[in-house]
């Protein structure tokens, strides 16, 4: 796209919507689970940017009308207060520039810029507020799928998502697996898991089939045996190339603290 003055002017008009998208992407990126953010060329992103910009400018126009009228009202009630002559509505100035094509004097051009800054701060204030957080909480906006239901939501509601990650690091019929609290997952554009990180995990061997001389018992009909665990500690990050499968169980934090009372408080998750 060639960078013309017209392009910059349209960006300026769409700026509230673009700021909303950027702030929203930042919010989503703050969680421990992450998917690539919405591309600006995606239809839904453009529609959202245009709608939010239109609403923001409409509210900005209402605010300007109200503010100018309030100044006039105060002057009429107390004639000693002099504000100078009544300003043009900043959005009317913008409209006149677009339709008339005449340059505006600098003292009139300040007002649209100030109004734009006000609109952007209002959008940031709304998106960063707790009310938007509560509104968003139960919805899977970034399309995380099973990760949202089994990792993000439990972690936000006082549960610890405990992940068993079976890796493809095999030796004969033995493989390496890790068990720990999921603290971070990365997902690709289609929702596939790219990597997963476990906090203070335990490592253990799993075995497919049965050792020689040990008949298959009824208690292990699946033929998968797990062996003793050793504590690894720290954080283990597992890449999707070596992950065979992931099992996640959500355990209540309070229950975990009862089982392991001397262990220090879990790290904040997600």
């Amino acid at each position, binding site marked *: 796209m060639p960078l013309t003055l017209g392009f910059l002017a349209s960006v300026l008009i769409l700026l509230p919507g673009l700021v909303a998208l950027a702030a929203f992407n930042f919010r989503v990126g703050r969680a421990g689970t992450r998917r690539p953010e919405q591309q600006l060329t995606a239809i839904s992103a453009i529609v959202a940017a245009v709608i939010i910009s239109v609403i923001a400018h409409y509210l900005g126009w209402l*605010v300007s*009308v*109200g*503010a*100018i*009228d*309030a*100044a*006039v*009202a*105060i002057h*009429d*009630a107390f004639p000693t207060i002099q504000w100078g002559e009544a300003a043009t509505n900043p959005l009317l100035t913008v409209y006149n520039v677009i339709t008339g094509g005449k340059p505006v004097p600098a003292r009139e051009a300040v007002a649209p810029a100030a109004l734009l800054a*006000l609109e952007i*701060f*209002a959008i940031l*204030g*709304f998106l960063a*507020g*707790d*009310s*938007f*957080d*509560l*509104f968003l*909480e139960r919805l899977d906006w970034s399309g995380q799928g099973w990760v949202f*239901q*089994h990792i993000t*939501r*439990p972690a936000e*509601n*006082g*549960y610890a998502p405990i992940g068993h990650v079976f890796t493809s690091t095999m030796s004969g019929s033995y493989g390496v697996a890790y068990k720990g609290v999921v603290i971070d997952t990365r997902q690709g554009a289609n929702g596939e898991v790219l990597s997963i990180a476990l906090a203070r995990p335990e490592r253990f061997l799993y075995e497919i089939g049965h050792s020689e001389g040990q008949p298959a018992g009824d208690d292990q009909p699946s033929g998968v045996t797990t062996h003793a665990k050793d504590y690894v500690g720290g954080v283990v990050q597992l890449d999707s190339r070596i992950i065979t499968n992931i099992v996640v*169980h*959500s355990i*209540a934090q309070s229950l975990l603290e009862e089982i392991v009372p001397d262990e220090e408080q879990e790290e*904040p998750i997600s």
Partner: protein
Amino acid sequence: MNWAFSGMALFQTVGLVLSGLVVLVAFWPLRGIVKDIWQLPCVISLQPRSRSSAVLLPGLFLFFVLTLVLGPDHFYGRAFLVAVLTPTPALLLIRHLAWRSADPEERTAAAEIRNELAGRLHEPPVTPLKSWPQFVFDLERVRRRSEYQPPPI
């Protein structure tokens, strides 16, 4: 050096302090229009009956006073002043009412949730002895957390 003894320096310093105070007061409507008014729909929708009256009563009172002071003309101007000046005190009132009606257990649970979030966002922790700005929302988080069912194991 006439100006050195005329008291002008003192007046200008006092003027600087006064203008600082005026700027602080001017932040009240700015905060109302930028931040607080957008919290009202969510706060009201959590408890519509009591909280809509907690917003409407100060708003209508302010409208009445403004009409007495500014006269019956310029409706948009008065409506704007009400919309800008009401949200901040209304939110304070709602928070105070919610704090009064909450049990000590609810306050403690809300403080726990707030401290969990505050630790994640590097904000100062709170105590359940005194209310904090996001208390109303943390109370709702307590309710949602008690209702939450994890996926079956």
